[in-house]
């Protein structure tokens, strides 16, 4: 376990450093923030002053060294636009995205796993084929389009659910979350569904493939030969085996979900990191962009790590090997 931790740490450090370099220069390539930030009435002199205030008048490599120096001390700079430390800013937006992604994940598992297992079980029947065809549509639909359609249907036409925004929040562990209040949950349903649709299809397919595969395995046949009921075979023998790959993939997908929240949050005006990122790109708020990417990578690292741990807990083959080392 220690080795595993250390190795992960080393990799993470590599990724972070690479990320810092790539991101800094990547962001640096995109325009001059002062052009956006400053009031159009400002005189060229004021523009120059502002440039100097943010240190843009210095050569790139100096800026980079400064950036690295600060970054190593955990300071990713202050948002040009908001004047707050970028990290703090993002952290204040993060709970909204995380809870959205999490609910999306829960939705996708709740929808995907049962459908997938059933489809795998009935792979050659019309039920299985219907589910598969459905799942294809599920992941062929572009995210933004789905969101808009959902708003049209559920908010505008039926008026069942609120269209946009966040709703009531409750403070939990210092984070303000919607997921714990009924009102807040209402606001989350549509965006979370939008986010979940693609993943649900993915999970369905994974679960189906896994189930099909598992059903061909000798241990399933052996379980049948033991006289177990089909339900038990599916729920205990098959499910436990397929959950391992599903969890692995989903864990990784949680990351991409956070990333794809960019689109969903824009559509639903959900005040999360993704929207902050888009806004920061439009305003060229470099520290926020950089901090966003860095924090996303850190989240990724944490997620990957957690996934590995869960994986270890689920898969005894890995678990025991882990104990041995």
């Amino acid at each position, binding site marked *: 376990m*220690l*080795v595993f931790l250390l190795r992960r740490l080393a990799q993470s450090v590599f990724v972070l450093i690479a990320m810092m370099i790539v991101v800094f220069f990547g962001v640096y390539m995109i325009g001059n923030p002062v052009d956006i930030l400053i009031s159009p009435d400002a005189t060229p002199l004021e523009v120059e002053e502002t440039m100097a205030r943010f240190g843009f008048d210095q050569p790139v490599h100096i800026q980079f060294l400064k950036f690295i120096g600060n970054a190593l001390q955990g300071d990713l700079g202050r948002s040009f636009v908001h004047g707050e430390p970028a990290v703090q800013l993002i952290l204040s937006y993060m709970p909204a995205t995380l809870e959205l992604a999490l609910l999306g994940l829960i939705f996708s598992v709740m929808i995907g796993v049962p459908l997938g297992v059933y489809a795998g079980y009935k792979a050659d029947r019309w039920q299985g084929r219907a589910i598969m065809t459905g799942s294809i549509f599920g992941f062929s639909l572009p995210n933004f389009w789905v969101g808009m359609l959902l708003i049209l249907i559920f908010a505008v036409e039926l008026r069942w659910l609120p269209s946009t925004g966040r709703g009531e929040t409750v403070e939990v562990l210092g984070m303000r979350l919607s997921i714990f209040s009924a009102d807040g949950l209402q606001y989350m349903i549509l965006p979370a569904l939008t986010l979940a649709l693609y993943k649900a299809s993915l999970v369905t397919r994974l679960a189906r493939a896994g189930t099909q595969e598992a059903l061909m395995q000798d241990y399933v046949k052996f379980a049948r030969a033991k006289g177990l009921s089909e339900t038990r075979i599916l729920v205990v023998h098959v499910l436990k085996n397929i959950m391992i790959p599903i969890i692995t993939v989903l864990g990784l997908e949680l990351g991409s979900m956070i990333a794809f929240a960019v689109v969903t949050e824009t559509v639903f005006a959900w005040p999360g990191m993704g929207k902050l990122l888009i806004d920061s790109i439009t305003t060229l708020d470099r520290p926020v962009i950089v901090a966003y990417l860095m924090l996303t990578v850190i989240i990724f690292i944490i997620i990957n790590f957690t996934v590995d741990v869960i994986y270890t807990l689920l898969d005894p083959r890995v678990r025991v090997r882990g104990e041995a*080392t």
Partner: protein
Amino acid sequence: MTAMLELNGVSRRFEKKLDGVERLARRLGADLRETCVNAVDTASFTVARGEVVGLVGESGCGKSTLGRMVAGLLPVSDGEIRFEGIDITDARSARAREKRLRIQMIFQDPMSSLNPRMKVADIIGEAAVYHGLTNRQSVADYVDQLLEKVGLDRAFAQRYPHQMSGGQRQRIGIARALAVKPEFLICDESIAALDVSIQAQVINLFQDLRRDLDLTYLFISHDLGVVEHIADRVVVMYLGRIVEVAPTEALFDGPRHPYTQALLDQVPRLGAGRQVFRTVKGEIPSPLNPPPGCHFHPRCPMAGPRCRRDVPRRITEGDHSTACHLHDGGTE
């Protein structure tokens, strides 16, 4: 009889070194060791020209590793391999490369040992053309001859491996090896994957080829019956070490090492009537941490204190050599 192939103390270790991270972890107190499998441990024996030497032993005892070292597919950790008197231990030298071509290997799995995307004609002909044994114009004939040699119709040249049965594929594998005019064949479980009736066909083929082409074999198998049938001499391995080497008849009539005895005892045999199966106790130990002394001692009914302590030397009496303390001054 001069030795065609000679192995002198050949060893092969698979070491898993600790990388930087793991070393760091160990320093931090993690229980980490460099692991080392002595897949083959100072193996020495010779194969004379025209001879068939059988190599037997249980799964994981290092048979394939040994075979692959001889074939030059795996580097040797220690010791030397000589072929016709020439040191071919280092596969990179030009001399060795040329000699190496004389040694060919026939693999176990007739499916995975053939490139599924090549036609039989190419599988067999490619190396021959590359090494200038034939040219592009005449390669078709060359392939046809080889097919004929291994008892296949020339029509097979245009097929893909998956269009053939296991026995036919194995013949293609043999033809491929023969294409570079080898003198020495290593057959690594070459018939294990085949059905009994097909096994017989392939065994017969091997014997025919031996006669016609004057081939020498190192015949690796865990099936004692097959080895008894085909080999002139038998090498028995246990957990990386050679425990007994003897002419086939001598070995089957009077096995000297307790392991060989147990092995022969336990093979189910036809014609023995209803058998009461007797067993050696215990399991094959993990090669990762083999027992000290004689590797076989935990399972050996005759083991004494010395067996636990000392690695037995191989004692040769006539053409029969055994590595057992029983034959080297007792187990006390």
